[in-house]
Each structure stands twice: as structure tokens, then as C-alpha cells.
């Protein structure tokens, strides 16, 4: 997640990270992490184990993915992923609910 300000709201955080801010805390799948002081990017990122890295020259911060459990996945519930296909058409992974999906990562190198 790349931002040019740390002052972002919960909706933007949810859209970029998949972590939804609810009354019980920051939630993804069945996991909720309490946020005693409510949502604020830096403290929330800290609780979720997300590194916040600044590039001062570029005026940007990058927020890394969560690491609070020590694993890449905190839940077996598949995250939403929105990508374009090779012809520029947007595709949402969740549109395949009801089918088995074999997701194949590859690269031209």
C-alpha cells in the first residue's frame, strides 16, 4: 500500500489491505485485532505487524502486508484481489465463488 500521507481513513485502508475496521477492531476473515484507540494508520499498522517504510525524497510511504501471526496468511479465507487481464479488463477474484479456482503465478523471466 503506497500513500503520500499517513492521514488516510479506514475505508482506504480496507480497500488497500483487506483489513476492515469494525467496532471490535481490524478484521480479516475470522480474525479481529482490537484497536483500543480506534483507527489511525501508524498504530493500526503496528498492531498488525505491517512495516511502514518512508522514502523521504519521493514523499511516499509504503505499508507492508501484515505479519502479526508470523505467516503470510492469517486466515484460509481467500483475500479479494482485483487485477486487469491482458486486454485491460478488470477482474475480481471473488467473482469465481462457486467454482474451484487454480490460481497460477508465473512471469515472463
Amino acid at each position, binding site marked *: *500500500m*503506497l500513500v503520500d500521507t499517513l492521514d488516510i481513513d479506514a475505508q482506504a485502508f480496507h480497500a488497500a489491505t*483487506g483489513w476492515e475496521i469494525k467496532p471490535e477492531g481490524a478484521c480479516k476473515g475470522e480474525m479481529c485485532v482490537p484497536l483500543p484507540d480506534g483507527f489511525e494508520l501508524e498504530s493500526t499498522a503496528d498492531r498488525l*505487524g*505491517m*512495516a*511502514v*517504510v518512508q*522514502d523521504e*525524497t*519521493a514523499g*511516499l510511504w*509504503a*505499508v*507492508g*502486508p*501484515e*505479519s502479526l*501471526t*508470523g*505467516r*503470510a*496468511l*492469517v*486466515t*484460509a*479465507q*481467500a*483475500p479479494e*484481489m482485483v*487485477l*486487469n*487481464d*491482458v486486454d*485491460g479488463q478488470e*477482474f475480481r*477474484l*471473488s467473482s*469465481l*465463488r*462457486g*467454482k*474451484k*479456482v*487454480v*490460481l*497460477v*503465478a*508465473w*512471469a*515472463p*523471466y
Partner: protein
Amino acid sequence: MHAELAPLGVEIVTVSLEMSEAEASRPFIEAANPTHRSLLDPMHQMDALFGVVNIPNIVWIDETGTIVRPAEPGWSPGDTYPDWLKAFVDERAAATEAKAAEVEATNPELAAKLRGGQDRDSYADAIRDWAAHGSESRFVMTPDQVVAGSQDRPKEKSAGAAHFELANHLWSVDNRPGAIAHFREAHRLQPDNWTYKRQAWSLIGNEAAGGGEMGRFNQGPLPGQEDDWPFEGTFTSEAGATAPADYYPKTLEV
């Protein structure tokens, strides 16, 4: 394989982890003439979202949207390549086979280690088993097993991903020195992430080679240009020195 599995309710979706424009991936997609969806992932979301650290990697997701196998090395049968790449791929496969035969004859202990990685030929049969038996397939993992079997991620790996994202962005706006500095940090913090390395080596290698069809497969300095190479390692020095069991760890036995 999609034509075979689609009637069984299985969708194959390919995702290209490549920062460059769609044209870099298109020749491969067209060579495969796919009936399945072919997505582009220029920001390497697959790494952050699913814990992908090498390609090819495969994730299985069931009808309810539950991951039943986390990212792991996997291949489908009949991989296809553009014509201009076939000779290169065949040559490399022949060289690997010849080397394996030589090691088998001279160093059985090392040979056993070299055989230890994920089995390319039988992986697709595991997918077929899942397609046929669904949740009863012996390859389906429980949610707890899926989470535990996903890549490890201490906080420094989160920082590595953040540096990679900055590198990716800075490269896209032609800030080459800034991008290289962040790539180097990403590599330092996620030393086992081959997609972060191969992507960066490929970008710089392609630049050195002046592009062309094979430019992205040049993942080290050209002869005489060693001092210009901005990274600690190259594909040959790192992947070449890594045993298959470590490069493509074995996660299932068909």
C-alpha cells in the same frame, strides 16, 4: 488443462508477476492460446496477499472462497512457450538432465538432494484428484494447515515487501537509482523471495541487453559490464547455487 478441468467446475486463472507493460507477458499468453483468464499483476500483489515467493506457484481455492492449498511450486502439463523461446527452454532442460545424470553417476548423495524438490510431472495429477473428489481429496488441507503452511512472515519481510512496492513505483516513474536502492533492501529483507530478485535482475538485465525477445532472461551482467551490475547476486550465482529442494520445495507427494 483448462479444457479438461472446466467441465468439473475448476477455473484456472494465470497471473503474470511482471512490472513492465502487458506486451512483456502477451507473447507467452498468446503462445498458450488460453481459454482461461490471464491476469497481470504488475505490483506483485500475489506475494503480499498469498505469500508467493517464486514462480511458478499455485494456490487452490474452493467453491466457498477458502484456500485449500497455500502457494506452492506447481506446474500444469504441456507448458507452452513462444517459438523463439522453445530452443532456449529445451536447451536448458537438456543441460539440466545431462548434469543430473553426471551427478547421479559420481555423487549419489548430492543426486538425492537434487531430486528433492517438487515433482513437476505429477503435480497436475494432484489438481485432477481435487477436481474429481473435492473436499475428499487427500490433497485438501484444513484451514489451520493452510495458514501454517503459508510462507513465514516476520516483520522484516513486511518491510521487504514495502521496499519492493517503493522500488516498483519508482521504477515506473523512471527513478532508476531510487528503485535500485529499494530493490536491494527488498532482497536483503526477503532473501528467499525469488520473484523480488528475478523481477529486479530481469529489469536491469533486459536494459543491459537492449531489450529483445530474450532480454528479460538476461539476469546478470553482460561480459565486461560486471562493475555496472547493481545487485549482490545474479540468477546464475544464486539460483544456480540453490538445490531444487530449496528452490522449489516439495509440499506434496502424488
